[in-house]
């Protein structure tokens, strides 16, 4: 059977969290149930071999998407389709097992993502042991050594404990573990956010090399736009649980369309600010609103200079506009020309 071109499809994904006050309080004070819509209808797809990134500020839902895709959260509604298989239909742990072999995750915190009591070789070998892929001990050891070398660590490092390694080295161990069972798809949740900039460069280079050599597909989550620029093929910008723009990396950075994307790009501190008294920039007003009570209509309208009445009432859908997808009335109506 020929390989599917599209490896992952996410359709109308919604995930709500129940943040209601305790039952007794609701009863006594008549308070209503509260739901936090972390994801409010997200749709995108990822092609085999590409790096698709989700970027946004805190509370935008990008981490929630990652966790739904990988099965840590159950979606409230919507579909996640991996290589043609609807993951929502797989409710039993055994049924998910073959998918788990093919899809793995790398986490943000290098200090919490490795069991402090286990030796590195046990950590890296865990996927192999769990899926029963290698019974022979010698074979297992050899594979672990191979994996460690692949992430540019020494095979002897397998005998050590995580606390003997630096943050960057621990992320390498995480990557080695994620690659142990030969997955096709890696979900990377802010893998370099906790690392120093020179270590970050090493890890990003490593991830690019591995992608080329092992033909991996990445879903990359980050809030750091410059990292996103370096690693992504296509980018999705999220705001308050919704996708507001999806474009290729070049197009997004060269010609951002959605007002929020423009805001993000303008507020990145620059290494080369314009001359004269350190360059005065207008600080932008507003903060991300509370996701429990999002604004009506378009979630961005309170902060948007181009908002009109329609924006306050009607939520825009993600539509194709000149090569990119944008969810903005102003752009769709032609009121906001490209930057």
């Amino acid at each position, binding site marked *: 059977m020929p390989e599917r071109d599209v490896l992952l499809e996410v359709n109308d994904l919604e995930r709500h969290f129940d943040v209601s006050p305790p039952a007794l309080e609701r009863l006594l004070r008549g308070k209503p149930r509260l739901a936090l819509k972390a994801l409010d209808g997200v749709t995108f797809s990822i092609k085999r071999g590409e790096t698709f990134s989700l970027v946004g500020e805190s509370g935008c839902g990008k981490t929630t998407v990652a966790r739904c895709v990988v099965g840590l959260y159950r979606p409230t509604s919507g579909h996640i389709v991996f290589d043609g298989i609807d993951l929502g239909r797989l409710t039993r742990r055994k049924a998910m097992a073959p998918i788990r072999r093919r899809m793995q995750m790398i986490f943000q915190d290098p200090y919490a993502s490795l069991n402090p009591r286990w030796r590195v070789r046990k950590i890296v070998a865990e996927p192999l042991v769990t899926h029963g892929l290698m019974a022979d001990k010698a074979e297992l050891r050899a594979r672990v050594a191979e994996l460690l070398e692949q992430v540019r660590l020494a095979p002897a490092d397998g005998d050590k404990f995580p606390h003997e390694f630096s943050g960057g080295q621990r992320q390498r161990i995480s990557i080695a573990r994620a690659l142990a069972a030969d997955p096709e798809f890696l979900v990377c949740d802010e893998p370099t956010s906790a690392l120093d900039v020179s270590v970050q*460069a090493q890890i990003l280079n490593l991830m690019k090399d591995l992608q080329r050599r092992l033909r991996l597909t990445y879903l990359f989550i980050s809030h750091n736009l410059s990292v996103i620029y370096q690693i992504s093929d296509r980018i999705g910008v999220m705001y308050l649980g919704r996708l507001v723009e999806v474009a290729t990396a070049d197009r997004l950075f060269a010609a951002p369309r959605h007002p929020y994307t423009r805001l993000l790009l303008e507020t990145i*501190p620059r290494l080369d600010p314009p001359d004269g008294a350190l360059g005065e920039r207008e600080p932008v007003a507003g903060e991300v609103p509370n996701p429990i009570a999002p604004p009506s209509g378009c979630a961005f309208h309170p902060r948007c200079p181009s908002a009109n009445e329609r924006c306050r009432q009607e939520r825009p859908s993600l539509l194709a506009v000149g090569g990119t997808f944008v969810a903005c009335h102003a752009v769709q109506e032609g009121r906001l020309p490209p930057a």
Partner: protein
Amino acid sequence: MRNSEPLLKVENLRVEVPTKRGTLVAVDDVSFSIAPGEVLGVVGESGAGKSLTGAAIIGLLEPPLRIAGGRIALAGRRIDTLPYEAMRRIRGKEIGAIFQDPLTSLNPLFTIGHQLVETVRTHLDLGPSEARARALSLLKEVGIAGADDRIAHYPHQFSGGMRQRVIIALALAANPRLIIADEPTTAPDVSIQAQIIALLKRLGRDHGTAIMLVTHDMRVIAETAHRVAVMYAGRIVEIGPVRTIVEQPSHPYTIGLMASIPRTAGRRDRLQQIDGTMPRLNAIPQGCPFNPRCIEAFDRCRRERPDLMAAKATEAACWLYADAKQPAHA
């Protein structure tokens, strides 16, 4: 804008921590000065000693860490040898501090108005209504909308970015001449980050406050600072004007660091990287601490430790520039 007389002068600062395996040196012979109204950025990766330098200056080193040598002078007056009470009075009044975690810097049990007024009255001789007026003006200055109402709110009623601004207001309460800001912009929201950067710049300009900005984020420094000190393994390896450090660095570590910062335009195939990691405190190499990772290292680098010396348009601690026989001054 800048006077010639430095407000803060740090000379040969050395911070040690005794452990059961011997004494480790966390900050090694660090010297620099900050003029009034100037923003000095101190950049380095984790473990470089930049936060400890700030903590040493403000007298908040946690034991067993201790200052083991050198001299710190504020406006000509020596402060590293002051007794606890005297230092406590200086802290807050002359030197303000902004730390990284706004959640733990505010007392959740008191309104921010109460905390502001308390800080103001501790250091300035103002009556209650004057102190409150000052607190209000501080809140407005840091950009808290609706300050008249919000002054009576508790910390948990503020969002993360707002809390960070309240912290800055607290640091400004007694009109200090120097502010030590340790990673004030680590909020993951770029819009908040931009606002805090603008605020810090304004302080320097409008009040003549000197700022020591400690961060690992070079972009923030590029936007905010006048001069930059680059730290590595407890030492300053390069110091100079910010534009020069970013565009024409001299020290190989600085060159590698600037090159590994991801950009938002241009080529996207491979980032420059520096192989290896910063040495741990108990395994600092002999000679220049960067020599194992340095592509330009030669024999002298492995034997002798370089001090800061003139190098093109900055000062760098690197034997590559040993030919220029000028003595080093921070």
